């Protein structure tokens, strides 16, 4: 019997939503120590959609369905693979290599697509809509293009799934749309989707010592020119911190001059 393979792409990210006043160093750099590394929130929802999809397909088709989570990042990103297994994923892989450093979304999606191809067979790929650090929402559609499969973005609910097609509800700017695609297809999952199921106590016990495979660049058979900094056309030229360090409150006069000055300062600092 053929196995039905569902891939989830997930990223470990600094918790940028919980940026308190101490998250920025005085010199304007990010104080990473003050930001815990977390499972990217949209990706947690992508994991849930994958698990739900597995449940539906298993029940109706009696096939063997596997959910595999892939992450690219430093070795400690295996934490989110472990977390996924505690919540029901069958397994996962970390792809980690210094040669991936400096990847923009083009190089990131290339590496992820090569890792997916390396798995051999896949039917569905779920990603988050957006990672909360890079904030681009580009990796999903770019991975779909590299795999040459259609994409369904901003999905928030599975309407139906079989071994050869999926029907999803997706969030539009001003409404919703229900779409259907043949498999394989890549789906990006919107923040409105269902929260992920919690850990299962028995999985926490049974999977806590499972070895998590770690692949290097060599394992995914890449064109090395397309990895990391070399494979990244976008170059970050300059970074400015917009969070003003906590100071004594500044008093602003409520007259025209005071308010005009404030609005101009905040506009110049890209805050307004």
């Amino acid at each position, binding site marked *: 019997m053929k196995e039905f393979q569902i891939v989830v792409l997930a990223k470990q990210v600094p918790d940028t939503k919980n940026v308190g006043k101490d998250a920025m160093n005085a010199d304007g750099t990010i104080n990473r120590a003050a930001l815990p590394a977390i499972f990217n929130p949209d990706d947690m929802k992508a994991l849930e959609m994958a698990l739900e999809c597995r449940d539906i397909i298993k029940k109706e088709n009696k096939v063997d369905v596997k959910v595999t989570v892939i992450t690219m990042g430093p070795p400690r990103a295996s934490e989110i693979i472990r977390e996924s297994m505690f919540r029901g994923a069958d397994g996962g892989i970390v792809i980690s290599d210094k040669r991936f450093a400096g990847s923009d979304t083009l190089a990131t999606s290339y590496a992820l697509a090569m890792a997916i191809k390396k798995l051999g067979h896949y039917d569905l790929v779920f990603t988050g809509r957006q990672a909360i650090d890079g904030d681009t929402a580009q990796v999903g559609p770019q991975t779909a*293009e590299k795999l040459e499969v*259609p994409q369904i973005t901003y999905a928030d609910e599975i309407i139906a799934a079989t071994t050869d097609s999926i029907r999803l509800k997706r969030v539009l700017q001003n409404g919703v*749309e*229900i779409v259907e695609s043949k498999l394989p297809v890549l789906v990006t999952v919107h923040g409105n989707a269902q929260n992920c199921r919690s850990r299962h106590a028995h999985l926490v016990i049974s999977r806590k010592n499972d070895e998590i495979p770690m692949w290097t660049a060599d394992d995914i058979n890449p064109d090395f020119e397309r990895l990391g900094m070399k494979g990244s056309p976008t170059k970050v030229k300059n970074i400015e911190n917009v969070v003003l360090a906590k100071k004594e409150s500044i008093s602003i006069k*409520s007259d025209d001059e005071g308010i*005009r000055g404030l609005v101009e300062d905040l506009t110049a600092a890209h*805050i307004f």
Partner: protein
Amino acid sequence: MNNIFVYCELKDDGKVADVSLELCSKARHLADRINVEVEAVVIGNKLKGVELELFKHGVNNVFCLEDQRLAFYQTLPHFSVMTKLIEREKPYSVLFGATPVGRDLAPRVASYLRCGLTADCTALDIDENGNLMQIRPAFGGNIIATILCPDVRPQMATVREGVMKQEIFERQAHTTVTNLSAAEFLEPADFVVNIIERKLEEKRIDIKGAPIIVSGGYGMGSKENFKLLHELAGLLGGEVGATRAAVDAGFCEPERQVGQTGVTVRPKVYIACGISGAVQHRSGMEQSALIISINTDPHAPLNSIADYVITGDAVDVVTKMIKYCKSNNKK
């Protein structure tokens, strides 16, 4: 060759989306700096007359691809058209709105062409070497990055709605419409994803994700005065929040209540107007990156956690802020 392309998004009524007109206007200014033309791409099922609107916003040439099957946006047909056209015309830059449509399409196109794509830009400029400087917030809005793609063309970017100004220009001396043939640009395989149903709904109020919140308390005095907060929030691309006292007084909808029994928000900027700063309210907003407090009482408790304190009448101060935001936008 080397022109600036703007991918134009269509609204459900067939009109060009505001963000696309904003981009055409911006592209006109950039194009004049480097002596190239602005070309718009419109893909849809009813495009008659669409060029007239675009010419007003500084476009030289409009590429139109009209086909029955293109009533609603779908990724693959638009992807086919854009990639084929870009390969043929070799533009300097291609701009998309950072809307759900633009952020669905642009990355796939950039991936195929293997060019750089900068997400969700809030400003564009051209540097001394003729490269497009793409400025964008990242890291949850806590940093602003300037991004260049020095080696690869086209330089692609998605640009946030409402940050560029829509401008009317005198019609360019040279304007054209170039019709593209569906047979040449589309394939049956582009229609493998089926739209089963589409439901448009009224926008639900959700202030949690707003980068800027203009929040009003009981000190705003009336529902009428809250309109000023909506106007300011609209100008800043933000949302209106409120205290429980303001909600209870009927100044605005309960979905906007911030605090212990409302929503917790962490915007980039929280502008508190006539809010005393009760602990139940503060718990829902004290993690905001920047807090501005406007209050007639210089000792209002909220002032102690504010970065900027403005002592004065909220209606008067907000009216001034609106005035200066408007004059700043015009610059």
